[in-house]
């Protein structure tokens, strides 16, 4: 299980305690939830919008909406699922309104990537077909463009599964569709992305 998946099951009591305190009238408890979930939600929204400013605005709105609705939160699902659901839905609605005219504004890559096992494997000279770091940058650029060519729904599942590491079951709960639908959307999206990248490599 990936770290994201583990996080969604681990320590549910901590979230519940924070929610209870928020509902009782302690707004600083909600601050802890914001601090805890804003990095993950940032990743979700950013990879769907590919624009830092839009992500920032949306993230503020997502937490504002969650805060206003917190009194009605009954714990039927975990806070994790609930806030991701709000996040995905608000982002998709926003993307529908934004349309096609927008600018990619991509965040810089954190230096920790160089300690990442897969990054090292990809670029190490010990593999049979290493990717040059220079080419890797361009591949990532092309990947970002390819992601934006997917439909909003397909981009959402790829973001959640591949980038955020959420299991199929969690994604299906968040989107409110069957696991089968999640899997087939993923397969289709992977095919599409692969095709876009192939086009680039042929040039």
């Amino acid at each position, binding site marked *: 299980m990936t770290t994201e998946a583990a996080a969604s099951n681990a320590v549910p009591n901590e979230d519940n305690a924070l929610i209870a305190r928020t509902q009782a009238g302690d707004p600083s408890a909600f601050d802890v939830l914001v601090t805890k979930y804003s990095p993950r939600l*940032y990743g979700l929204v950013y990879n769907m919008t590919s624009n830092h*400013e839009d992500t920032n605005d949306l993230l503020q709105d997502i937490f504002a909406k969650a805060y206003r609705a917190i009194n009605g939160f009954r714990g039927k699902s975990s806070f994790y699922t609930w806030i991701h659901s709000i996040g995905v839905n608000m982002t998709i609605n*926003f993307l529908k309104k934004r349309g096609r005219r927008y600018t990619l504004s991509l*965040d*810089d890559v954190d230096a920790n990537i160089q300690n990442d096992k*897969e990054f090292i494997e990809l670029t190490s000279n010990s593999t049979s077909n290493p990717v040059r770091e220079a080419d890797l940058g361009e591949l*990532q650029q092309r990947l970002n463009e390819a992601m934006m060519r997917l439909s909003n729904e397909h981009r959402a599942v790829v973001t959640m599964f591949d980038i955020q590491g959420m299991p199929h079951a969690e994604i299906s709960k968040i989107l409110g569709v069957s696991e089968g639908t999640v899997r087939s959307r993923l397969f289709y999206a*992977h*095919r599409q992305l692969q095709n876009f990248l192939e086009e680039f490599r042929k040039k």
Partner: protein
Amino acid sequence: MPDDNFDELQTLLRLKRYEQPPPEYFQSFLHEFHRRQRAELLRQPLWRIAWERTVAFFAEQTASRYAYSAAVAAVLLCAGITSMNFLKPNDRDLQPPSIAAAQSARLDLDNRPRAHLPDYFKEFSSRKTASVASLHPRYVMDTRPVSYEPSSSF
């Protein structure tokens, strides 16, 4: 034939995790969140702000619990008597003028210039006042237009 081996693709996708803003961003995110919450509070109807302030005022007094309750009861009683005096058989206006005045004051508040709010923030201001505004529809005139980032291609 498309290659159904998505390993490299998925590795590249996973590496996108590292596309992040610097850690300072999330600290200022929380500050901004608080600022917006405060701004939203200002959009509450005047009567609600007044009521909350009254409650907070009494809560801060060192008088005994019973004095506090008595004071709150006294305020309620006054408000009740005032509203009864105005609730003559006039079916159209179900609210006492004090609240109506607060509402029209609120309408003016909403007409104040707004600085740099995204379009979907409209959603929150109307939500907050929905309970009081149930007798009045939301009169529409966007203060910010639909908008897009600039582009140098078409």
